[in-house]
């Protein structure tokens, strides 16, 4: 089961953060079909947020067709967002860990790493043309 976290200073409302985290988990294969999402009670007991916030997030996910609520039991995943590229995640993650190790050795701090990644990512997306941007939106 996944565990949520909240970034109070991200400027993104809590309910959107929850939705994003569920989507991300689905994309990364951390959640597959049939898995149960944490109960509302457990989520608010950890995060100290309003139960209605969680309910709203779960309802939005249900509206998107990603999860379904079963009365008295819980909320379960009905569809994943992984595609064939899941298999490539493993090696890609290893490469990324290597790269991060090299960046640290070169003396980059967290901000520099994030800035380097963000600018390169943006430039690459712009450079890849319209089809690339559509793919980003779908993901």
């Amino acid at each position, binding site marked *: 089961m996944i565990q949520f976290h909240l970034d*109070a200073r991200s400027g993104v409302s*809590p309910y959107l953060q929850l939705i994003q985290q569920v989507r991300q988990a689905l994309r990364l294969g951390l959640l597959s079909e049939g898995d149960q999402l944490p109960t*509302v*009670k457990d989520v*608010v*007991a*950890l*995060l*100290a*947020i*309003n*139960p*209605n*916030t*969680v309910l709203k997030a779960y309802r939005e996910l249900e509206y998107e067709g990603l999860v379904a609520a079963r009365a008295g039991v819980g909320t379960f995943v009905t569809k994943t967002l992984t595609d064939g590229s899941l298999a490539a995640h493993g090696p890609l993650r290893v490469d990324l860990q290597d790269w991060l190790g090299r960046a640290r050795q070169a003396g980059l701090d967290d901000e520099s790493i994030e800035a380097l990644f963000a600018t390169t990512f943006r430039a690459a997306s712009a450079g890849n043309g319209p089809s690339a941007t559509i793919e980003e939106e779908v993901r």
Partner: protein
Amino acid sequence: MTAVLETRGLGKRYRKRWALSDCTLSVPAGHVTGLVGPNGAGKTTLLNLAVGLLAPTTGTALVLGGEPASSEEQLAKVGFVAQDAPIYAGLTVADHLRMGAHMNPAWDAGAAEHRISQLGLDPDQKAGKLSGGQRAQLALTLAIAKRPEVLILDEPIASLDPLARREFLQMLMEVTAEHELSVVMSSHLVSDLERICDYMIVLVASRVQVTGEVDALLGSHYQLTGPRCDPATLPEDWQIISASHTDRQSTLLVRSDRPIVDSTMTVDQIGLEDLVLAYMSQASRPVTRHANPASPDQSALEAQR
């Protein structure tokens, strides 16, 4: 659904001073409601009127459709934790639970004991020896275990350290989710309430300034910045909550039911804390629409602390 707290023209006067005046509210059930305002604004007075510790001077208050403390059934519906979480210093934690069991027909002893052990409290310890956070948790346990329909909490976390505060709110939200409680909680800090409240009441200088669902409030308030303008020239359906002007620039907080599209000014959403602060400062200096354009308005930025 019956409103959790419904007041009409509610007022309370002590000798010459009105602690609360002309308070008309209808707080819906199923929400966590934050009652925010500076110290001395009348929050405790309003909550005391809601639980029947005080009788109103004018107006009426109804909690879940019943007059506060009018009968033992009404008392059973409301769980209350007063400011500074009073407890009996000479009684042990277990004694407090026994007291709850003897005084409340709907007492859930299993849940109470489970919560006490979850909190790590020693049942045989005298309650006077507990820390501030533990006292607040004990008082909350007492209020919850009587199985009320609404919890009314008067600044329960004001004097707690950040960890104790977080733990209290965690327990509060868990119980709210589990039993579908309505909660009315007061604080003088918006940051305490921002995480957990979906309904807000702003009380300043004994009057209600604004009240509503948090999402609706955030969606209907806009922060406008732009070149210096005359308030009298602004659209009629804009409700100007606060305005500050320098000789070149105006910053306005506007409430409008329709989305604001204005090419001359930058339109931004506003955070809950800033929204509440704007109402709190406006309460002491109401903004007039037809200000004399020749005199620079001195409200300035100190109004928006």
